[in-house]
């Protein structure tokens, strides 16, 4: 058993900053590289490209930044928002406090105006008069006739709609001080293949930019200044990173049934395979993707492929996990490697498919009827999605069991600033205990479920390799020789070994990440995508004089360090994004600790967690304890 270690994936730039908030106040009293703004538009109108243009340009100015896409579950015509947070100190968790809002969607205008912080700015399309009722004295309204200008400058309604987005990007560039050069480069790169689009984009960009400069004092007191804090980092989404992990792990069979927010994982895998796995001459593919008829079938394909020796996986979301329940139990009991990615969305049932949550923890940990327990990994950001995807295949084959990489919509679909992914060419897949033809040739009798070394793992044979390796795989009662049984002892021998196997696995999953604080009495625990918000909150709380020891869980089943951490702290806050405190439940079940020592902080409305929410939770709980 290894002790916890400090994880290296997190940008150094975000290492605790004494001030606790990383704000940089310039002489002119303006707030530099530390603010947040959001854009409210209509989906399907092309605002996405304008927004990522803004995000990437800021990133290229060397300033830590994050973007959160809050979109509807339809294809076109409904309100959608894009939130960008700039933070020189490297805190890139979502923040609910917006200094500036761009209100492009009449349907959400009132709501957008209301969301500007007092003293903040509202950018709107002044082509048409503004509804006086929506005015706020404590907000500065910035009107730019985006619509009018685009109607004059462009022909065709489609182009006019599209360019309006680039135009507000131009206005923001002026107002916030985004380097025009940088934006220009991005546009040129973006449309390298469609040169004529480049011109119209530039025209639109300048419409907004110039108008803003002519009519308003630019930049605003919230502004950007180039830094050098993004070197060695990339802007990457978790599904793309996870797909890359599957490619690098040597996965050859991917089965799936499309579902938001997991679809882009397989899209990326297909893209990368097309790039790296197709024989240039023959066009032959070193991979096989099965778009299954549903999630049950997808799970079946993965299990069949794993049984036959291929590294196989399926990406899905909550509803898929529910549908795969029977098959998951089969893989657990027959001991077949299988990798499942659960990109969690808001449940229960269909829930809110385009909102995030951590609501599948319990469903995954003990998926399927009867006694079961499963290995799960909890990436905290896209970089870990990459590395844990690779680990997942190794663990699945070492322990011949289903392994779940538990991500969520925020990690999977949003662009995060993470260290550039690196690869060690000395890596070789750990295929676990697989008997070779030679070994089988030498054997008297191969017993599929016989554990020789006491770690709970029994060697497996692959079909087609050697007659001596033949055995019968069944989800019904079987003994250590894989023979059918209804005998209590023979049955028990096998299921008891599975317990030992999972205990061994607990020591092999990624160790928790521990951050100790001078003088901390209480602890705080979290996993997955809430990490950055918790990390920020922990820093700020420390600055307030509330030091907390922070343990970030990265794998399940839990290893001893988790229980130790809980025992060492009189009280531990458990932060998670679900209604019922599922992480807290797992901690109680697996460590036996009483609930009175676990203070729950939950946020489950579907938007990514903010540090403020965590701090409020801690303050509230402490107040309770005090009272």
């Amino acid at each position, binding site marked *: 058993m290894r002790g916890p270690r400090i994880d290296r994936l997190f940008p150094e730039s975000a290492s605790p900053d004494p001030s606790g908030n990383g704000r940089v106040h310039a002489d002119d009293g303006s707030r530099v590289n530390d603010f947040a703004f959001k854009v409210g538009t209509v989906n399907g109108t092309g605002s996405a490209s304008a927004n990522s243009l803004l995000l990437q340009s800021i990133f290229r100015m060397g300033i830590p930044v994050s973007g959160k896409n809050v979109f509807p579950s339809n294809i076109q015509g409904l309100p959608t928002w894009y939130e960008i947070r700039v933070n020189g100190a490297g805190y890139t968790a979502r923040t609910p406090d917006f200094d500036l809002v761009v209100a492009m969607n009449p349907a959400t205008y009132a709501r957008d105006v209301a969301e500007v912080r007092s003293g903040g700015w509202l950018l709107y399309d002044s082509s048409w008069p503004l509804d006086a009722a929506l005015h706020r004295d404590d907000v500065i309204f910035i009107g730019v006739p985006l619509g009018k200008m685009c109607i004059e400058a462009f022909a065709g309604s489609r182009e006019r709609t599209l360019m309006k987005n680039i135009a507000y990007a131009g206005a923001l560039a002026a107002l916030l001080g985004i380097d025009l050069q940088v934006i220009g480069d991005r546009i040129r790169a973006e449309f390298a293949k469609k040169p004529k689009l480049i011109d119209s984009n530039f025209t639109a960009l300048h419409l907004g930019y110039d108008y803003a400069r002519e009519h308003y004092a630019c930049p605003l007191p919230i502004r950007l200044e180039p830094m050098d804090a993004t070197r060695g980092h*990339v802007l990457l989404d978790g599904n793309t990173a996870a797909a890359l992990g599957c*490619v690098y792990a040597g996965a050859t069979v991917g089965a799936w049934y499309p579902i938001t927010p997991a679809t882009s994982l397989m899209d990326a895998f297909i893209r990368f395979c097309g790039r790296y796995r197709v024989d240039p001459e023959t066009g032959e*593919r070193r991979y096989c993707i099965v778009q299954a*008829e549903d999630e*049950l079938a997808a799970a079946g394909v993965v299990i069949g492929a794993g049984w036959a020796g291929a590294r*196989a996986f399926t990406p899905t979301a909550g509803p898929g996990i529910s549908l795969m329940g029977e098959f998951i139990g089969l893989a657990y009991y027959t001991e077949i490697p299988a990798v499942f990615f659960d990109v969690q969305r808001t449940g229960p049932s269909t829930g809110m498919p385009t909102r995030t949550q951590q609501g599948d923890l319990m469903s995954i940990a003990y998926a399927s009827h009867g006694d079961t327990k499963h290995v799960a990994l909890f990436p905290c950001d896209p970089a870990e999605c990459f590395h844990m995807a690779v680990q997942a295949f190794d663990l699945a084959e070492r322990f011949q069991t289903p392994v779940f990489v538990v991500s969520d919509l925020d990690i999977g679909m949003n662009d995060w600033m993470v260290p550039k992914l690196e690869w060690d060419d000395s890596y070789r897949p750990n295929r676990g205990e697989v008997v070779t033809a030679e070994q089988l040739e030498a054997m008297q009798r191969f017993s599929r479920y016989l554990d020789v070394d006491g770690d709970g793992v029994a060697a497996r044979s692959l079909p087609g390799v050697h007659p001596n390796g033949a*055995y019968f*795989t069944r989800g019904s009662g079987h003994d250590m020789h894989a023979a059918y049984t209804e005998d209590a002892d023979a049955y028990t021998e096998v299921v008891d070994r599975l317990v030992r196997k999972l205990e061994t696995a607990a020591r092999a999953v990624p160790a928790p990440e521990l951050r100790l604080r001078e003088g901390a009495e209480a602890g705080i625990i979290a996993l997955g995508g809430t990490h950055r918000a918790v990390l920020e909150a922990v820093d700020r709380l420390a600055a307030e004089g509330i030091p907390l020891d922070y343990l970030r869980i990265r794998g399940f089943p839990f290893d001893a360090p988790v229980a130790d951490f809980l025992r060492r702290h009189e009280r531990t806050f458990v932060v998670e994004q679900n209604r019922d405190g599922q992480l807290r439940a797992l901690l109680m079940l697996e460590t036996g600790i009483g609930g009175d020592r676990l203070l729950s902080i939950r946020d489950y409305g579907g938007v990514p967690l903010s540090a403020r929410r965590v701090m409020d939770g801690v303050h509230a709980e402490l107040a309770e304890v005090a009272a």
Partner: protein
Amino acid sequence: MTSIAKPPVRHPGLERNELGLTRRDYEGAMSTLCAGCGHDSVTAALVQACFELSVVPHRVAKLSGIGCSSKTTAYFLKQAHGFNAVHGRMPAVATGVSAANRQLQIVGISGDGDSLSIGLGQLSHAIRRNVSMLYVLENNGVYGLTKGQFSASADVGSKAKRGESNRQKPIDPVLLALTLGATFVARSFSGDKAQLVPILKAGMKHRGFALIDVISPCVTFNDHEGSTKSYLSTRERMQEVAPVDFIPLTHEIRAAYDPGAALTVPMHDGSLVRFRKLAEDYDPTDRDRAYAHVKEHQSRGEVVTGLLYLEDDAEDMHALNRTVSAPLYDQPYESLCPGAAALEELMREFE
């Protein structure tokens, strides 16, 4: 009578095939099915077919769902890996096995409940993907293992043991497969080994999904008078379109020039399927005629049997996917991992 007293699948002598193996080498564990169950005859036919084809036992993967029929996989080819998946979900598992190792000879065994109720969707989509495998549907019109409820293949008017008769229209796997574009569709009878064995052989050699609907009576719950899936009623109603021979590659030359044959269809590997004679203007390469023929005889209460449709030049799942010919499961890792340099380069796109 206990299964202990029951001898393993019967077979004559100890004749040896091209691999020097005897029929016994193709047998499996002792059957625990009821004495006289049609499924055991299917097992015997499978043993015979594998023996005659000189199949290398351990190169076969046997898969099934759940049911008395699905237990068949345990009763032949003890030297081959077997897999009892979950009920109705074998087609997906078989698809995965094929994806991982296209060189395995995949034999899937299922029942009418396993295939036409809980498994209908998976069977249909395995057909659509044209996964290369032999799919034997042991069809007895009931759920045997759960003690005799009507299955979706029960004919209208067929009587249950308790007396009530089925009123819902049956799902005919043959018509379904033809409609879904299956490339090899046959129907046979567990009681007609002479017809079944060559069809099983052709099915195993077929590139693509070979569906064989085998009427396989359940002596315990559906072999009584009034049942349309009993031995008696099946024998009475059977109408064979054509007796077929399967001529493996090795015998090709000798067999190719058989004047007597009504039709000879070459398989992708050079072996031949020969239809000795054909029912009135029947053409086993015409999907729509096959469909019409089956329906027409059904309206007369007849059950058309034989190799009903064969299309051996269609693309199977791997052809459609353009998969490399070597099994994916043991591609050298180097050929799968793009390596550090490629990642370095890729990362630039995200900077």
